[in-house]
């Protein structure tokens, strides 16, 4: 390897430190106007009337739009096309957009918004999953499956009940994971303009330009060939820019109608209300285990608070159960889930998408199991780790697993064996593991086309331009693209120009979500670069009198022993021999063996693995929690750029600690005279607490390399997986420190104090949910696991499981 694995400045690094990276809000066009959205002040209401006259007459206003201007609905999933760009008659959360003003500047647009008079007819508000279950009316959405239950799912892979009955011990635990939000420092922004040919261009801080392109064409009823979406580099994504957004549709419509560029930039409060973040999830685990610590089966139930719209929610809900089988051997598994609608901002995908919540429960429960069985939690996990190339109970095909090495690394480096359960009171260590997808196996809408494409242009000057729809959100996708092509062609990554995230210029890539970019774009890039390499080798071999397969490509040269050409010379000979040089590569993940309805969520070309040890100190007088150090080891398959990989892992540790200790997206009711609206408790960066530089502990990061054959040079993901073990490791460390179980996130000092108080009184030293409501889960889809004679098909289908969904 000449390029891969070596620490290196990222190819777009210089632009980022000179302020030259052009984010969406940095775009300024001649005659550009500005747009602001009017958002509902009611959590649930019908719109009786909207009076626009004063706003329209306000000096400097060019256009006012309402729901009447947008007859077509949209939504990221084909099964949840439940949003209008502007709500025409029914608003479902405080913040739901219902009108827009376009004016000469932002200030004028904001002033004109205040002149719009909306008459609402308030409806009863559903504020929690419990309320959604007990109040089928008023319906938040007519299309929901049952009352205000958006979706119900149930699967049984082998007779889990029988497995539990035969187990030496059955552990039953309830956990709750509060919702939280992405908080990218860049607020969403978009600029729309008509070009000289009368076609629409939208620049947007989106992670998914391809899906925005499809939706824009449909919603604005324009030919897709007349719509171009350019994803500007995102100032942080974390899943918050994965949805197709109202403001993108509306600003585009305004530009089409006015024939002038229009910009919209959400303010921080709007970003909190737009949300699409972590779903609050209540979980019930029943897990069987033998006396010597082998897992025998699991029954998991989840209740997912979806907020006001579908978003990715159907997929998120599947993910609350789909990956419980990919870490440890699980002979039998039953999973039941429900997502409800509530009158709060819609939840969606945040880093880890649906899996951090059940991962928290599973890993804390394993800690409890280890204690009860008198085992070391690290040994318990090592004993149960899945084997490489396994097929799981729910028919997921696993590739490489470097988890055992990850556990050994963090155990050794944290001096775990000597310190765990032996530290002075108030100090403790906690361990947890995690696994994540390297790209969702299926696209969001059903199709058999490539999920990523790369096109290369090479000329006699030796310059290489790479075109790919992948989207740079800070994770370094441009750097991965350049590095992989550079490795194959033996050139410097800085000699490659990357043109990315532009639906008018680049082959389709589905976007930066589900940790898919390195694997899918990387495989497509290898295919394209290999084709160029073959052409160049053939021409160069002819010139050098060497057979092409003996040629090496490295350090900007094509050579065999002391016969060599520069890459540019060789490319020139290839252009002479073959004509203009270009090549394409594409990638589609292998077909997953699962054949049952619902098998579409969970499959991935590969899975990444992580182990983490957290050290915690708890002040028993105040409940204050300090984390002095975190050890983390991540099985990345192969490292492309260790500087960036480490950044992904440590950024995950940061976000995980922040979710574990303080972040929460919570709501409060205004008094009746203010309509009783359910409003965000803390829609500001100051009050929505997140870790600062002062709170961040030392992090010891190890990259474990267990290459996966499905991945480019073996490289797996690093952006989401390392987040997963952090939250449960914090909870487990707090238990080791002061002997209390906080079975819900975030773990705040008041909860620790409450648990310590209970402990002092001789009560159960625990804070967490104590009740799981009755949920009308359907009869499960029954699928025998591979070792019970199954073939991946269901032997009994549920009435409820009729829709094919893609994954995210």
């Amino acid at each position, binding site marked *: 390897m000449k390029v891969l694995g070596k620490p290196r*400045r*990222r190819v*777009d*690094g*210089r*632009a*980022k*430190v*000179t*302020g*030259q*990276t*052009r*984010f969406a*809000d*940095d775009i*300024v066009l001649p005659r550009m106007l500005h747009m602001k959205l009017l958002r509902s002040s009611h959590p649930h209401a019908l719109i009786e009337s909207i009076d626009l006259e004063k706003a329209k007459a306000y000096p400097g206003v060019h256009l006012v739009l309402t729901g009447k201007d947008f007859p077509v609905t949209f939504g990221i999933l084909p099964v949840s096309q439940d949003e209008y760009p502007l709500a025409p008659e029914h608003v479902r959360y405080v913040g739901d957009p219902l009108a827009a003003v376009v004016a000469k500047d932002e*200030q004028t647009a904001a002033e004109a918004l205040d002149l719009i008079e909306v008459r609402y007819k308030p409806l009863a508000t559903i504020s929690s999953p419990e309320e959604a279950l007990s109040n089928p009316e008023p319906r938040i959405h007519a299309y929901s499956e049952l009352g205000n239950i958006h979706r119900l799912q149930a699967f049984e892979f082998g007779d889990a009940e029988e497995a539990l009955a035969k187990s030496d011990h059955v552990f039953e635990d309830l956990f709750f994971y509060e919702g939280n939000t*992405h*908080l*990218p*420092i*860049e*607020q969403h922004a978009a600029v729309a303009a008509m070009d000289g040919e009368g076609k629409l261009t939208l620049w947007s801080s989106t992670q998914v330009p391809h899906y925005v392109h499809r939706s824009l064409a449909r919603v604005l009823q324009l030919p897709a060939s007349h719509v171009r979406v350019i994803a500007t*580099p*995102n*100032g*942080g*994504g*974390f899943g918050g820019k994965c949805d197709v957004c109202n403001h993108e549709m509306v600003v585009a419509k305004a530009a089409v109608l006015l024939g002038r560029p229009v910009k919209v930039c959400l*303010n*921080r409060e709007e970003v909190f209300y737009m949300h699409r973040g972590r779903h609050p999830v209540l979980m019930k685990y029943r897990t069987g285990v033998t006396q010597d610590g082998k897992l025998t089966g699991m029954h998991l139930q989840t209740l997912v608070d979806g907020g006001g719209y579908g978003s990715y929610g159907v997929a998120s809900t599947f993910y609350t159960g789909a990956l419980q089988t990919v870490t440890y051997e699980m002979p039998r598994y039953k999973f039941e889930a429900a997502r409800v609608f509530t009158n709060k901002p819609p939840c969606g995908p945040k880093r880890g998408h649906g899996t951090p919540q059940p991962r928290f429960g599973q890993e804390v429960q394993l800690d409890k199991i280890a204690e009860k069985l008198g085992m070391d939690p690290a040994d318990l996990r090592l004993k149960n780790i899945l084997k490489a190339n396994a097929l799981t109970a729910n028919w997921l095909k696993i590739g490489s697993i470097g988890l055992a090495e990850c556990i050994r690394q963090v155990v050794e480096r944290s001096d775990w064996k000597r310190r765990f359960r032996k530290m002075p009171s108030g100090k403790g260590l906690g361990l947890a593991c995690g696994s994540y997808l390297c790209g969702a196996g299926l696209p969001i809408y059903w199709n058999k086309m490539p999920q990523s494409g790369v096109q290369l242009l090479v000329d006699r000057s030796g310059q290489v331009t790479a075109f790919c729809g992948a989207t740079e*959100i*800070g*994770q*370094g996708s441009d750097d991965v693209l350049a590095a992989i092509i550079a490795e194959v062609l033996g050139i410097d990554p800085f000699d490659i120009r990357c043109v990315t995230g532009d639906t008018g210029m680049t082959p389709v890539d589905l976007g930066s979500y589900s940790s898919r970019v390195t694997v899918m774009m990387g495989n497509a890039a290898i295919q394209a670069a290999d084709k160029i390499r073959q052409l160049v080798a053939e021409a160069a071999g002819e010139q050098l009198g060497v057979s092409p397969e003996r040629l090496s490509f490295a350090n900007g040269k094509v050579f065999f022993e002391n016969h060599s050409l520069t890459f540019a010379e060789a490319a020139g000979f290839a252009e002479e021999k073959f004509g203009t040089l270009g090549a394409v590569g594409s990638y589609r993940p292998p077909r997953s063996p699962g054949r049952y309805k619902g098998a579409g969520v969970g499959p991935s070309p590969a899975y990444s693995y992580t182990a983490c040890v957290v050290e915690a100190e708890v002040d028993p007088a105040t409940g204050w929690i300090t984390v002095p150090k975190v050890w983390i080891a991540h099985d990345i398959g192969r490292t492309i750029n260790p*500087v*960036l990989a*480490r*950044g992904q892992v*440590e*950024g*995950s*540790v*940061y*976000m995980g600690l922040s979710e574990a200790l303080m972040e929460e997206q919570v709501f409060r009711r205004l008094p009746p005279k203010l309509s009783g609206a359910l409003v965000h408790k803390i829609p*500001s*960066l*100051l009050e929505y607490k*997140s870790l*600062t*530089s*002062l709170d*961040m502990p*030392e*992090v010891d990061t190890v990259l474990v390399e267990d290459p996966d054959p499905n991945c480019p040079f073996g490289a797996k993901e690093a952006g989401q997986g390392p987040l997963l073990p952090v939250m449960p490791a914090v909870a487990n460390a707090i238990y080791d420190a002061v002997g209390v179980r906080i079975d819900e996130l975030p773990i705040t000092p008041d909860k620790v104090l409450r648990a310590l108080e209970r402990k002092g009184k001789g009560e159960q030293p625990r804070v967490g949910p104590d009740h799981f409501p009755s949920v009308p889960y359907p009869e499960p889809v029954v699928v025998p696991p591979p070792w019970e004679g199954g073939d991946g098909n269901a032997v009994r289908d549920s009435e409820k499981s009729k829709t094919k969904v893609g994954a995210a």
Partner: protein
Amino acid sequence: MQRHQHLSLTLNGEPAEVSFAPYKTLLEVLREDLGLTGTKHGCELGECGACAVLVDGEPKLSCLVLALECEGKAIDTVEGLADGAKLHPLQAAFADLGAAQCGYCTPGILMTAKALLEKEKAPSRERIKEAISGNLCRCTGYQQIFEAIEEAAKRLGAEAAQRMNNESPR
């Protein structure tokens, strides 16, 4: 009636003049009226630090400063940090060591760090943490930012030593 205000200031070491709507913050005038979009906004309420610039050498949140207050002042932004085409050691270290991921908080942190290193040649890790505690970064987990600032301090120190050597009479 003249609606716009007029202002003369020193911008990245050069004299500059600008006219703007009087209600605008320094952040808005920099981005919208002077075309310097390198300085970012994340909250407009002084919470995130993305808009930090130097006003007479002191780090200030430009979203909380009225442009009207800046008559005659020296404003430094990320655009003026490099020495021509040569990156400032802070910029080079940030790019080399992964301190900029999405790059959105980066200009604010660079300017805050510059002010720190001008006051303290070799700040401790604790001092660095304190100095940038008002700059939120959601990507990096801060470790690589701390390391980049430490590395830049070393590079600046080495450059200063080099200059001393060159200037010494022997």
